């Protein structure tokens, strides 16, 4: 036990003597939250639209004015030719081309369903479908109004289902409420996993591990002594990140913080244990960096930070059972935004605990003092 304390004390001495360490701990969360939570948003504003109006009638101009009036769209002038408009798409000056065919007004007058063509730039698939959805809803509303006007107002229209939407847990659909907890997960994992992994392999590179290996320190003592300092730093990082999120983005904290931090504690044993395992099988910091980076990218993209994990293919959902970030991403959002309690996150808690114990024993087992 005393040996562990000596290792922990030594680690802290080294950590705080390292001049890049304090900026990493304090500036990293602020910068990441500020940049990512503001920049990475799915809300579409300023969709550029070009309209090729072959009809050039009163009604077609009315359609265009509806788009003009919408805050989502900016009209980019174009010549009267689909080819010219597509050139604009090609040079990235417009996202969407709407072609109103000749006879648009006549069709409406003759009660034939009017047709327009939408050509969407789909380099960014997500943006394209949103642009399409926005523009078709404008067109739908427009035709509905025309129909009502045309068929005398007094005549009863057939009953349609009207929807009243209310967004639970995030009534204003604030993107930052969704994003900030997700970024915190990544932040805490990076800080914890990378720092631990680099630390152990650095001892190998510098040869200091030779001197440690001839001491009577037991394997588990060494691993625990390495783990605890970074565990404490990562937990502090989570607290600090939450504070920044609360102050800058006013993220909701509806659930119990004790619950969140207990879960984070177990999660970090898993993440840090992974880092230690990685560094015990690598021989240089470079190797560790590349391998850690690889796993990090896979785990982050699969974790559901941007996309819903439920809509992922079956194999991906099975893979996610061993993805630590998937659990933490789910739990932090549930606890902060929804106010989930222990029974809501029980399954995740159990899974992460099992993974953590497995990982830690593996890391201790894999670390060998003799070659």
């Amino acid at each position, binding site marked *: 036990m*005393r*040996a562990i*304390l*000596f*290792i922990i*004390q*030594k680690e802290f*001495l*080294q950590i705080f*003597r*390292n001049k890049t360490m304090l900026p990493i701990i304090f500036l990293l969360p602020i910068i990441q939250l500020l940049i990512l939570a503001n920049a990475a948003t799915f809300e579409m504003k300023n969709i550029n639209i070009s309209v090729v109006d072959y009809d050039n009638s009163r009604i077609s101009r009315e359609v265009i004015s509806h788009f003009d009036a919408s805050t989502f769209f900016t009209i980019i002038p174009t010549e009267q030719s689909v080819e010219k408009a597509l050139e604009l798409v090609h040079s990235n000056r417009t996202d969407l081309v709407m072609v109103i065919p000749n006879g648009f007004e006549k069709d409406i007058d003759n009660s034939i369903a009017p047709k327009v063509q939408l050509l969407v730039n789909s380099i960014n698939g997500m943006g394209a479908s949103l642009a399409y959805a926005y523009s078709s809803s404008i067109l739908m509303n427009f035709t509905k109004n025309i129909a009502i006007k045309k068929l005398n107002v007094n005549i009863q229209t057939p009953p349609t289902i009207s929807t009243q939407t209310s967004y639970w847990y995030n009534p204003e659909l604030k993107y930052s409420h969704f994003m900030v907890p997700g970024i915190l997960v990544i932040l805490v994992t990076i800080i914890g996993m990378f720092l631990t992994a680099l630390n152990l392999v650095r001892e190998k590179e*510098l*040869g*200091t*591990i*030779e*001197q*440690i*290996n*001839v*001491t*009577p*320190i037991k394997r588990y003592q060494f691993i625990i002594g390495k783990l605890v300092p970074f565990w404490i730093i990562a937990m502090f990082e989570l607290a600090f990140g939450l504070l920044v999120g609360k102050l800058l983005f006013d993220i909701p904290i509806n659930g119990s913080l004790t619950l969140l931090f207990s879960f984070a504690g177990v999660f970090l044993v898993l993440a840090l244990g992974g880092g230690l395992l990685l560094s015990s099988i690598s021989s240089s910091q470079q190797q560790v960096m590349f391998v850690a980076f690889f796993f990090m990218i896979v785990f982050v993209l699969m974790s559901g930070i941007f996309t819903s994990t439920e809509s992922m293919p079956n194999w991906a959902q099975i893979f996610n059972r061993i993805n630590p970030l998937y659990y933490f991403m789910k739990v932090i959002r549930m606890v902060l935004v929804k106010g989930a309690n222990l029974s809501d996150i029980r399954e995740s808690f159990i899974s992460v605990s099992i993974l953590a114990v497995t990982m830690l024993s593996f890391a201790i087992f894999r670390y060998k*003092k*003799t*070659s």
Partner: protein
Amino acid sequence: MNPIIVNKLAKSYEKVNALKGISFEVEDGELFGLIGPDGAGKTTLIRILASLLLPDTGKASLVGNDVVKDFHEIRKIVGYMPSRFSLYTDLTVQENLEFFAGVFGSTIEENYYLIKDIYHMLEPFKGRLAGKLSGGMKQKLALSCALIHKPKILLLDEPTTGVDAVSRKEFWAMLGKLKAEGITILVSTPYMDEASLCDRIALIDKGEILSVNTPKGIIALFPQKLYGISTPNSFSLLNHLRTLPICKDAFLFGQEIHVTTSNSNITCESLHDLLSNSGFTNSTVTLIEPTVEDCFMQLMGNNR
């Protein structure tokens, strides 16, 4: 039982036979030197004894503890100093000592008498980071850290490589004092001049032990007479000597050429005349006492 027993120890890496089944014993309280060139297998042997490396075959024991089975015990009784400086460069002198004392379950005060002399020299720098010490100071700190738990056996892997001449002298003086405390010391070095400072030495080359003896004993076993030739033109003389049929071996030692002959009738005078006749007129020939290095060169020649 002797504190260090090495029995037919062998270790090979992928393509190299680092140790080819070597055996020797080190007696209690002995300062034992492992002398050999780079790549002889010194580091491999010391790492096996320090329980950092597993041997392929053979056995070794330190104070009765097998280096493979009883590695827990080994780590309590051995002080090991690797050839590369492996203390924490971002910790101070004081912090390094405290840390190593701590992990051995000891304190600096407990065994202070052992490191007193060395620590005294380090004292003015105790707040300095270990990475900012000079080479000689680093060695002293490393030795202090290896001694902090009062080991029974000290394993030192090339402790004086890359250290200036004065610090080397000081270092060997310290080893002498530690020996007086009853610590058995195994030290490896590529410097032949350090061999005479050991009680006994093992000459090692290409994973084999050529000879184990006291430095005097090794010299006494030198089979031929040894001549030292000084000449202003040593390089062409060396080449000339090697073409002579009476010359067995000829090596350049600094400014002097050391020659052995296969003909026992040769004397200093006859050798001098022989050289004068070949045009090397202003050379002096003397009969000299062989050094450990001469013995080593001779044994290495036989080994090839």
